[in-house]
């Protein structure tokens, strides 16, 4: 096999120049074509329209509200300023002055507040969100969620006794007792319990190593020391906010 003669650099440059000229000639010819010009103009307009379509954002600089910085002068402005003050005061009054409890059930944290101050923050265990289905022919289903919303401490107990509900027996595969006395269990709720309605309470746990994880059946489990502090600080009627 014999290779042909290799073209010299001058020949290559000439070929490139010729190709460039041909491309330019074609482009010029196309530019002279009315349809191509129209298409190019349409494309440019479309791209411009695209550029100006979307969302127009403005950055908000921090600072005081305009209304708060200017003194009201007219009668109407004075009336509005007074109403604004009254409404702001009403909103401020919504924050409890005494102790209150906040529970973040997603991150399993409990905060004990007093007014605007955080008195205590501790890991807790909220509802697991698990679904329990009755075995062999049973149709009952339980969902172990912690409710969200505002509650109040309705009652408090030292060394609380747990009156086991049906699901506690079903979960263990045990028959549901007919004698209410057989439902009573001692010690599993820790030293204290604060009831906040519908069978839910803040109580202690035998499984402190699981605090910080969502493992309860809907109640709020708390460690021994924080529970003692919450029990002492929160009288009946203490608001409990769960989110």
């Amino acid at each position, binding site marked *: 096999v014999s290779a042909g003669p290799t073209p010299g650099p001058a020949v290559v440059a000439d070929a490139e120049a010729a190709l460039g000229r041909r491309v330019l000639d074609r482009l010029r010819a196309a530019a002279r074509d009315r349809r191509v010009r129209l298409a190019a103009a349409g494309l440019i307009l479309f791209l411009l329209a695209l550029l*100006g379509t979307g969302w127009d954002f403005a950055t908000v600089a921090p600072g005081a509200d305009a209304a708060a910085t200017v003194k009201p002068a007219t009668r109407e402005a004075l009336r509005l300023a007074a109403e604004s003050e009254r409404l702001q005061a009403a909103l401020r009054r919504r924050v409890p002055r005494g102790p209150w409890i906040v529970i973040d059930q997603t991150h399993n944290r409990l905060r004990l507040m007093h007014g605007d101050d955080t008195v205590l923050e501790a890991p807790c265990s909220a509802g697991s969100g698990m679904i*329990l289905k009755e075995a062999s022919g049973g149709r009952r289903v339980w969902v172990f969620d912690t409710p969200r919303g505002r509650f109040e401490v309705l009652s408090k107990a030292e060394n609380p006794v747990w009156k086991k509900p049906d699901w506690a027996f079903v979960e263990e595969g045990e028959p549901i007792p007919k004698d209410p006395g057989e439902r009573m269990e001692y010690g599993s709720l820790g030293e204290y319990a604060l009831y906040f309605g519908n069978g839910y309470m803040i109580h202690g746990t035998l499984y402190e190593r699981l605090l910080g994880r969502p493992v309860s059946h809907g109640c709020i489990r708390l460690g021994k020391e924080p529970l003692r502090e919450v029990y002492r600080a929160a009288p009946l009627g203490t608001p409990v906010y769960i989110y």
Partner: protein
Amino acid sequence: MRRLLLVALAIATAASPAAGGQGTAAASSGSGATTAALAREVAQLRLERDLASGKGFYLRLDAGRQRLALMLQGVTLDDYATAKLEWGVPEVVFVDRRPPADWDASPISRGRLEPERDRDRLEVVAPPLVAADAKPAEGASPSPPPIPKSAEESYSVPSPYRVVFAEGVSLEVRAKGHGGRNRSLFRRLLDAASLRAADLASALRLGATERVRLRVTLEADDAAALYRSLPPDVGLIVVGLKPR
């Protein structure tokens, strides 16, 4: 000289009512603006009072203080500092579609996450009944119940994500420096292109009725915490936002 003095006096007399008129106009326009700002503030406070009187959770975006708070009945449950706050309106061929001036003094409700958290609940079938007097087999021990995943394990957090409200307002939450360094150039370009396409579609109202978008940039941990813990059907109140 006297003639000159008279001319000067005449000019001064002619000019003074005009100057006085201008001053009065400025003062009245200033007091008008103050009254309008106060009326807006009062409308927002009334709205906030109504939200605080209800049983639902709501977000409070304070533009002046640059804070975003999760609230219930007037009580702050969680509070996040915003690193950046922007608000936007849809724009079609450089013409923006402004919302009504009092959009932030009207109720904003039923906020839902987009993309949604997909909660994967563990489902357990109870063991079959054991007779009360039956003894467990030797060596047998009850299997411990499964431990559900924590929120951090359950939900990966997209950035940005949005809380979309029923009234055409949405809150876009971005995590500060949202994984830019951890993602490839191709991934970032792809994300930017998909965001641009979504923005175009919403601006042109192709299946969307979004009128106002508030964009907040939070610390990555705060953005994740809000995504994981946001209750369903939240409301929104925006305060201290100056009109565009």
